[in-house]
């Protein structure tokens, strides 16, 4: 197993864990944590490919990761803000009860 494969596997695992959190937890904040985990897994992929890629001096993967970190930070801020707003209106962060958009 080459190093890259190892990193990719770890990334996949983290991604799956995050997805599991997002899919199964009832608390909105936990779902957000899961999403953050997924994003990080993606970042790990980017960095790994950059490291073992054919021409790392181009810094592409690195840049991609840095930008996605920045974007993820923004995403976290907004997401948590939304959770708090929802909580203020509905007094719950339980996703099973947040089905206002039921069709």
């Amino acid at each position, binding site marked *: 197993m080459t190093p890259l494969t190892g990193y990719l596997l770890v990334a996949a695992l983290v991604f799956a864990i995050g997805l599991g959190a997002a899919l199964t937890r009832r608390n909105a904040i936990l779902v957000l944590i899961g999403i953050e985990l997924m994003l990080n897994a993606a970042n790990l992929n980017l960095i790994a490919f950059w490291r073992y890629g054919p021409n790392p001096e181009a810094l592409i993967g690195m840049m991609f990761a840095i930008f996605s970190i920045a974007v993820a930070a923004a995403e976290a801020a907004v997401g948590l803000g939304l959770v*708090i707003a929802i*909580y*203020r209106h509905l*007094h719950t962060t339980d996703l099973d009860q947040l089905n206002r958009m039921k069709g």
Partner: protein
Amino acid sequence: MAQETDQIFVLLTGWILSYLPEWLRPYGLAVLGVVGVLAVYVTLFALTTWFERKGLARMQNRYGPNRVGPFGLFQPIADGVKALVKEDVVPFRADQVLHFLAPLILLIAVCMELGVVPVGRNMVLVDMDAGLLFFFAMGASTELSVFMAGWSSRNKYSLLGAMRAIAQMISYEIPLLLSAVAAVMIAGTLSLPKIVEAQSGFTDMLPHWYVFTPWGFAGALIFGIAASAETNRCPFDLPEGESELVAGYFTEYSGFKFAIFFIAEYIGMFSISSISVTLFFGGWGAPLSFLSFIPSWIWFFAKVMTMIFVFIWVRGTLPRLRQDQLMNFAWKFMLPLSLVNLGVTALWRFMNDDWQRWAACTAILVVSYVVLGLTGMRSQHVAPRKYRYAE
């Protein structure tokens, strides 16, 4: 001769390492370095506690510790022993694990901060390319441990203290970073030794320290203030304001855990003043060209201790702020000023070196200082405080 005294520790490590087998040397080097640095700083910590108590006492016209040893010099040792032998009380409903982990993580984080500080010529533990960034990353991770401490001990005072501490740290981290970035902009590197080298050199016996430029001066001031807020020192010591919330986030800590918090706070102080010395005060460089014969590490620690003394002095002088004043100061004054300072630094970087540069930068800074002081710091009318919860 001066060379030897300057490099004495480097030579010493080299000599010791020469007795080790080849494959062991890197580890040996690491161990030696860590042990050395920790030893020095912990000793300094011990001295500083005594020094602080003495100094404060003098400022308050008391004697201070004067029983243990000459001038109470052994007081710190006595304190340490006391802390060690004391019973370690943990609240019943406390979250045991976090309660235990919090001080350790804090200590580890602040100690790692020391790793990148160049304490003398060729004397830096890890010469990291992104040293400054590492420093701030470690500093950021202290907040979590503070929160752990406050939350885990299930005590509203602790929680409030932790919240205050985190809010304050986050708010003041921004001016801290921005003012540091100013220095980075000029030095063109994040590696601390390189920053120091950028400040070495003299024009007829005056050093090239950044503090002697308009932006550097402003930056040093901002950095100093923000630093004292980062380390929860007076006048920003609300998180542990004894009179308001017993001791803030380490109310529920006793025995050696408390001592660890204590150590951590002081080590944090040391590290952050080391960084500010490195960034603005020429690191281990001599203040005047003809003083260069004195070893660099002496200069470094002298400067650090001066900073520490300033901290103590401020603590002895200023009263404590109120939470809203603290926040207003951070967001309405420090942040804009540091941003302006950043702009001024850019200006400085790109104007060619003549008196206009000085005039322009100084003028901008002074004007913005005055304007911000007049607008941002206008005294808010005192009214019953509005608390906003998220329910």
